[in-house]
């Protein structure tokens, strides 16, 4: 594999790392505007991270090595997952290292470490958050897998890069099963990134919190890494959605013009994706926790209907 391809690969990861706080801030800004609040500005994500990195990291008294180890595992797995998703170009060197199933597995590793670290602190809130996280993700993960399976069945390969290359060629045909896959994926995106109908990380309300409860004991650089990881995860999910359902513009070879076009297309799609997310989060109300498994079950249902229609209608 040529140096250009490796350079492209690292550029892609660095780009994702760099703009993840920006995207989160852009989303936050749109939400604030929609709710008639004054937005904090696009630099807020970076300011928060800088502040947290400068602060001292405190550890709970009875915590073990797991607590200190987990933020790095979480951040590392998410960076690794970012290498597998074709953000700017397909057929990059690491794309063939793992397929979509491994990608879901990587995200599952991150989740398990987060849950273990939360339980390691021994505080009841973190335990509660860990329990809720497992409750919801047990249904969200198969939904994500079925959405991926539909795309893989259509493309005949489980590698995300091949799926993107295949979808780019087949622009003309309509696939009902892909519509269901997109619906399932969107619901999973909301669930996994602690967005509003499922979870609201902006509040510290014991009745509602899932994700935030697990982070309560973290501070300083650990918290910074976790926050950055969460922002990266959101960007990663949006990038996966773009790659699966709107892959047009992603470069099929490493060339200056193609990469510049891919960059422009990616930024354009991110720019458009944020208002959709912000609108959904503003219009929907936070669900009660008992309704959340139902929400996750409907994501799984979309995935299964998509698979079934694929087999029945052959499209």
């Amino acid at each position, binding site marked *: 594999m040529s140096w250009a391809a490796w350079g492209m690969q690292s550029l892609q990861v660095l780009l994702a790392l760099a703009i993840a706080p920006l995207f989160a801030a852009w989303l936050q800004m749109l939400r604030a505007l929609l709710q008639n609040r004054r937005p904090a500005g696009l630099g807020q994500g970076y300011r928060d991270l800088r502040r947290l990195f400068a602060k001292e990291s405190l550890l709970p008294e009875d915590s073990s090595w797991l607590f200190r180890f987990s933020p790095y595992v979480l951040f590392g797995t998410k960076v690794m997952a970012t290498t597998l998703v074709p953000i700017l170009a397909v057929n990059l060197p690491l794309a063939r290292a793992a397929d979509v199933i491994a990608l879901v597995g990587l995200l599952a590793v991150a989740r398990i470490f987060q849950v273990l670290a939360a339980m390691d602190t021994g505080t009841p809130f973190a335990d509660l958050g860990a329990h809720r996280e497992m409750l919801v993700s047990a249904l969200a993960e198969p939904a994500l897998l079925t959405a991926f399976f539909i795309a893989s069945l259509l493309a005949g390969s489980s590698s995300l890069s091949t799926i993107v290359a295949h979808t780019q060629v087949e622009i003309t045909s309509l696939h*009902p*099963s892909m519509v269901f896959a997109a619906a399932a994926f969107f619901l999973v995106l909301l669930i996994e990134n602690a967005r509003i109908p499922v979870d609201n990380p902006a509040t510290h309300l014991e009745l509602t919190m899932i994700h935030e409860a697990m982070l309560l004991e973290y501070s300083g650089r650990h918290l910074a890494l976790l926050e950055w990881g969460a922002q990266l995860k959101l960007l990663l999910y949006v990038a996966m959605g773009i790659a699966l359902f709107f892959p047009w513009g992603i470069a099929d070879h490493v060339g200056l013009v193609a990469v510049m076009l891919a960059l422009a297309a990616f930024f354009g799609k991110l720019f458009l994706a944020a208002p959709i997310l912000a609108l959904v989060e503003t219009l929907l109300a936070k669900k009660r926790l008992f309704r959340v498994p*139902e929400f996750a079950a409907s994501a799984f*249902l979309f995935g299964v*209907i998509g698979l*079934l229609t694929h087999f029945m*209608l*052959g499209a």
Partner: protein
Amino acid sequence: MHLPTESLPAILKFLAAWMLLLSFALLAQRRLLSLIYLLAWQGVTLALSTALVALLTGDRLLWVSASLTLLLKGLLIPTLLHRLLRRLNVRGDVEMTLNVAGGQLIGIVLVIFAFALAAPLAGALPAATHGMLGIALAAFLLAFWMMISRRKAISEVVGFLAMDNALFFAATSATLGMPLIVELGIALDALIGFVILGVFFFHIRENFESLDLHWLEHLREDR
């Protein structure tokens, strides 16, 4: 209007998938009012698919049938149901015998069963509507399951009408149209059945002060 003929079956497949999704939405819906809207959407989908089949086959009578479907199933019956709901002053959630997630999982099993049942028959159908019979059968079974798993009389009637919709869908899409006279007969039957059930609603409520059919299972001695 001139559409490329090869894209028509693709749109028809989309409508079929949409029909299946609406059936699941009916199964999952808690509120009676939204249930009626979903039923209306199902009627509109049915009319659209009939119109598409008319476009595909060039059968003039199917246009009549499509507009009849739109008027009857998309507008008239939902409006009547809506008015009935207001006159009965029914409020609150639909009573279910099983929780939503469990009901939907059973729904998935039903869909798989329907697809397996329809798979051997699919070869005998026109190529354009290959998988449609399975979806229609699945929608039929889902509506049936909805009738079984609900307690309130109105949601059971909605299930009955959804069953009727699924039958129509099977007839028009899977076999590319059916005789208008048969369709008229079935449509009128459904409408009359609906009117009779509407009368029954008032009787049930007069006797039990509720539309919950759960009460019908008990003997009452004081009347």
